[in-house]
């Protein structure tokens, strides 16, 4: 094969003479088009295509942008014809000498497909302004349109400000200079690639536009952006963007969010117009998405998935569906406490909470919140948040709950990803929203001065909503019950493995989570619980249980003191306590301050549950001393399935030590299976329950998430074993059906001896005298990785580097019986931990640090 440009086989390049029917051209005019087309290659291979991808570039790129699609088809012998066009006046197509506007360009594309005599199913693929042109073709050729794929584009700038970069480029003072006389616009666009383009790729993108005379199309494209009502291309744009709503074909939106031009709000606009679309946001990628990321694999996987009729089959629910609001609605005359806040002290009875929820729901409806609208709740746990959650559920609005523990950056990324229409927050959150330009109509949780409202762009307050909604609804029956299978909530993962992922739950799945908790822990209506762990705490009203929020900063679990816990328990005669491991650690640290009556309250607790991360037995034993009458439980789960298994202190003691952390048996309604790792460390596709085989942990339960939010590729991976959720954790089942977690899939070492999970080796290393926490990581290529222990030592090492010889020897000897041969032992002053779970060690970071350190050279910090 000979290459025309880097990554483009010469055989794909062809020229076609096309008679023009566009109004801008005189009758009888024809133009030469340049295309990349794999038709001849398919014919040579004897492959009959099942359809054609018609790929349309934007400004100022050319068909080169789509080479990845052509190459992927070629390398995998896929039955797809790919035609990537150079639009007229662009790339290596003819310079027509006239100003081609949007309507002309859509018509031009039709002229081309007529000339090429493309019959059969067509998938349009568009980028940048090529997106709307491809959609223009799509709406005009619906009879042969099969699918739509769009990347970083916009169909309508109405109601939005034109992006600053384009506003500048189209300004008369700089337009000609920036786009035609110089190659500034080209350079700027190419510089948007994340990571930067290779020099030869940059050169290839520049190739058709090296002289000013060849850049007229670039300049005209910018000038044709209809950013005013009076613009000549406005009617065409309006027509296309309206017609897009009529497209019902499968649609895939692939997006690079770091795009200064087509930001997330254009994605939200497209989702609004094409609500059935599958969406994947590539966190960290930018405008030149096809350059930034491999889009060929997801595009063709998606096309293959669209052509198959897989039925994943969901897990059976424990009981018939009962809405989340059922308990609340059955207690409209119950004047006992439903929700209690300690600081500031406040109590609402069931009747009061019901009224509050209905008033809020009505108030929200009045300002335009509709079923399916996303409402971002940036309010700390307590009565306010509880009322908001149930009001949204009542309306059918989708709650978006992001944890401030993600940090400002992570939180902003999560919020932008979910793209809520409304943002309800406390002052601090609203300030963040204002400064960082988070999306959504802003609603203040508290009262606010007019000046501050203006400053923060706040349009409503909760007080106003309650007031305007008061009495508007006679009761819950005034609202249409939400569709059980409609989206109810978007929660976020911890972000310990890359950016936090949004996880969507339907009403039915939230209800299933509630039912599972009720069954597993025997949480009867009328019980009372201390809500120290956010996701479960919110279920109190749905369980019919009185819930109390202790006096603590919930974004910092370590602020929960023993006294605060006891006082909260006392306020409601709590029988149940939900807490996180970090919170419990602090409770134990502060337990000496408890007085006799507080101790007595805690002695009345019958269930203590610690969720979030596994707790070592010694810590749990100390917790047991604090709550002597309680069953002490620690569930295992994840944002995508909460909980999965459960174990209590006696169970942990009975299990003893083994390869990993024993997390017990599946909770009510849940099933666990293992996708066994092969010699290369790849998980199989068969869900097995055979004991003592290590593999990826799979979960099947009615309360497993509906899908990842706007992460189509991630969703496909997590559901690739039909009916099961792939957790990304590794572990095994034992003969008693107990699950042992051995770490994360990403933490599995691929040594010459086969895949190795880290937990057993880490526990062995930590057992050595003078050892602190330890992490096992692999360095070197998969399959021949060397095992390395990176650890804290006691006393703490002053600097990172190889461990003292004696320690290294002891660790190697201690780990050897677990089956892992340790090559090197490194000590560090502190192991890096994931920001949200102080307990989760960042092994990915450690592995790359260890690889650099052990390669030789100056030793940096991990």
């Amino acid at each position: 094969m000979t290459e025309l440009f880097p990554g483009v086989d010469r055989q794909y390049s062809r020229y076609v003479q096309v008679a023009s029917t566009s109004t801008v051209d005189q009758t009888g005019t024809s133009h030469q088009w340049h295309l990349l087309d794999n038709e001849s290659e398919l014919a040579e291979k004897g492959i009959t295509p099942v359809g054609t991808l018609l790929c349309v570039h934007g400004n100022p790129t050319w068909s080169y942008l789509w080479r990845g699609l052509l190459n992927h088809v070629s390398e995998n012998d896929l039955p797809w014809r790919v035609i990537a066009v150079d639009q007229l006046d662009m790339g290596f197509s003819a310079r027509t000498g006239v100003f081609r506007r949007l309507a002309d360009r859509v018509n031009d594309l039709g002229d081309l497909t007529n000339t090429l005599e493309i019959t059969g199913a067509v998938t349009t693929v568009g980028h940048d302004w090529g997106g709307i042109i491809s959609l223009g073709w799509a709406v005009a050729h619906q009879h042969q349109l099969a699918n739509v794929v769009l990347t970083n584009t916009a169909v309508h700038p109405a109601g939005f400000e034109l992006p600053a970069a384009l506003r500048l480029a189209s300004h008369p003072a700089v337009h000609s200079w920036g786009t035609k006389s110089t190659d500034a616009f080209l350079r700027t666009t190419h510089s948007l690639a994340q990571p930067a383009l290779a020099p030869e790729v940059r050169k290839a993108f520049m190739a058709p536009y090296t002289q000013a005379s060849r850049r007229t199309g670039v300049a005209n494209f910018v000038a044709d952006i209809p950013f005013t009502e009076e613009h000549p291309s406005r009617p065409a744009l309006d027509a296309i963007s309206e017609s897009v709503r009529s497209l019902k074909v499968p649609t895939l939106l692939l997006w690079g969010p770091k795009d200064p031009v087509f930001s997330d709000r254009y994605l939200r606009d497209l989702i609004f117009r094409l609500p059935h679309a599958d969406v994947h946001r590539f966190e960290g990628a930018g405008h030149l998405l096809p350059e930034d990321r491999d889009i060929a694999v997801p595009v063709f996987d998606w096309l293959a998935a669209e052509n198959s009729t897989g039925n994943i089959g969901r897990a059976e629910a424990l009981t018939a569906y009962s809405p989340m609001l059922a308990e609340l609605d059955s207690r409209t005359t119950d004047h006992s406490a439903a929700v209690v806040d300690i600081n500031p002290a406040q109590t609402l009875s069931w009747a009061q909470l019901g009224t509050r929820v209905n008033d809020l729901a009505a108030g929200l409806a009045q300002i335009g919140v509709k079923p399916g609208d996303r409402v971002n709740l940036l309010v700390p746990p307590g009565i306010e948040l509880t009322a908001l959650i149930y009001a949204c559920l009542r309306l059918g609005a989708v709650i978006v709950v992001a944890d401030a523990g993600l940090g400002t950056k992570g939180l902003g990324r999560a919020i932008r990803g979910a793209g809520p229409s409304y943002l309800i927050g406390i002052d601090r959150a609203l300030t963040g929203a204002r400064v960082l330009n988070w999306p959504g109509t802003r609603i203040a949780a508290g009262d606010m001065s007019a000046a501050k409202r203006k400053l923060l762009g706040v349009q409503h307050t909760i007080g106003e909503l309650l007031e305007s909604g008061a009495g508007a609804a006679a009761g819950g029956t005034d609202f249409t019950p939400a569709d059980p299978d409609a989206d109810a909530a978007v929660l976020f993962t911890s972000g310990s493995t890359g950016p936090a992922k949004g996880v969507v739950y339907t009403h039915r799945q939230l209800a299933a989570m509630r039912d599972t908790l009720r069954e597993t822990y025997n949480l009867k209506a009328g019980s009372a619980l201390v809500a120290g762990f956010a996701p479960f705490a919110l279920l109190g009203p749905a369980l019919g249980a009185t819930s109390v929020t202790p006096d603590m900063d919930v974004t910092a679990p370590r602020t929960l003191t023993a006294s605060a816990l006891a006082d909260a328990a006392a306020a409601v005669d709590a029988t149940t306590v939900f807490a996180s491991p970090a919170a419990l650690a602090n409770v134990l640290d502060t337990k000496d301050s408890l007085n006799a009556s507080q101790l007595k309250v805690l002695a009345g607790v019958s269930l203590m549950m610690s969720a979030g991360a596994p707790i070592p037995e010694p810590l749990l034993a100390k917790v047991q001393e604090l709550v002597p009458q309680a069953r002490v439980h620690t569930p295992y789960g994840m944002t995508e399935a909460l909980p999965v298994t459960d174990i209590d202190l006696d169970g942990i003691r009975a299990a003893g030590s083994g390869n990993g952390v024993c997390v017990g048996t599946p909770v009510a309604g849940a099933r666990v299976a293992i996708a066994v790792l092969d010699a290369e460390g790849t998980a199989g596709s068969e869900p097995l329950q055979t004991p003592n085989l290590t593999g990826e942990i799979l979960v099947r339960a009615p309360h497993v998430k509906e899908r990842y939010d706007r992460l189509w590729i991630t969703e496909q991976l997590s559901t690739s074993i039909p009916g099961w959720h792939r957790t990304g954790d590794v572990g095994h089942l034992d003969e008693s059906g107990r699950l042992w977690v051995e770490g994360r899939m990403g933490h599995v070492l691929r040594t010459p001896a086969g895949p190795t999970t880290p937990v057993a080796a880490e526990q062995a290393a930590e057992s050595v005298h003078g050892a602190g926490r330890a992490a096992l990581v692999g360095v070197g290529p998969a399959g021949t990785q060397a095992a390395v222990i990176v650890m804290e030592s006691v006393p703490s090492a002053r600097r990172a580097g190889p461990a003292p010889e004696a320690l290294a020897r002891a660790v190697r000897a201690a780990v050897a019986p677990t089956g892992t041969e340790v090559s090197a032992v490194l000590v560090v002053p502190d192991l890096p931990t994931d920001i949200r779970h102080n307990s989760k060690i960042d092994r990915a970071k450690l592995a790359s640090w260890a690889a650099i350190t052990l390669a030789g050279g100056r030793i940096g910090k991990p």
Partner: protein
Amino acid sequence: MSPQQNPEITRKVLVTGASGLLGGAVAALLRAKGHHVRTFQRRPSAGATDEVLGSLIDPAAMRRATEGMDAVIHLAAKVSFTGSWHDFVSTNITGTHTLLEASKHAGVKDFVFVSSPSVAHFGEPLAGSGAGTADPERARGNYAKSKATAELNALAQDAPDFHVAAIRPHVVWGPGDTQLVERVIERAKGGRLPLLDHGAALIDTTYIDNAAAAIVRGLERMEFAHGRALVVSNGEPRPVGELISGICAAGGAPAPRLNVPGWLARGAGSVIERVWLAAGARNLVHDEPPMTRFLAEQLSTAHWFDQRETREVLDWAPEVSIDEGLHRLAAHYGGVRPRKANRTQVR
């Protein structure tokens, strides 16, 4: 079962370079397995029953040596940091070529060329790397360049009636080793052994018995090994500092304490190497330079290898672990009182 696969069948094997540590071990192992061994070296060696004296620049001696042999294991080579390129060519390149020709002429069936991983690696850190193809252009230093040429030539001779395999043992050490062990211990005793970059670089080494066993396996498994170059090591990468400390401890020397940045040592090594070569050219020095850029790189950059192919092809795994090897090393030195440094101590 072909004779190559059955080590029980006695074969006549010529071992060149049998006066060296590794060559001696290979000859001893072959004898222990019941093979008839003939050795070829410049000076008479102990315990030899059938030996031909001669050097690799003596074609007639090589013809005598290969006569009547079934197989050849070729270890003899000029191994040095210094010396003129001409010397390397005549011994390592021309000598190997002549031996190959003599072997074919004598009807030898199998030829094991003992090479070095340095023929295919060029100074960058190696982590879990494969053997790679020898490259005389990029190999560093006269030794590696000449061995690369010789290996390419040897493997090019591989044919259905004349099987050739290249075995590349990586950093061989053990009792009696003068290349690595003696130097490390001697320098450590003189306080002249620094650690580079805290000795963190991960390196693979080969205990002498394992290296000898793998070379013999190369012959036994020739049916699968021919035409290939296989790196051999213990497959136990260790931080270089830990290895050196282990060797020092076994030899009764203090562990190195001085830490020198790797870049400094590499730079200094380059200078010393140039000075030494210039001095050697004028007959001012005759031994090896105290530090070379190559040595500094060896001590400060990772070099460990993917052993999966080697172990599969040779159907072999090392029998002596590094810990056991160090134990044996200590036993070896345990009988001997630590010698006094016989040189002026330089700090």
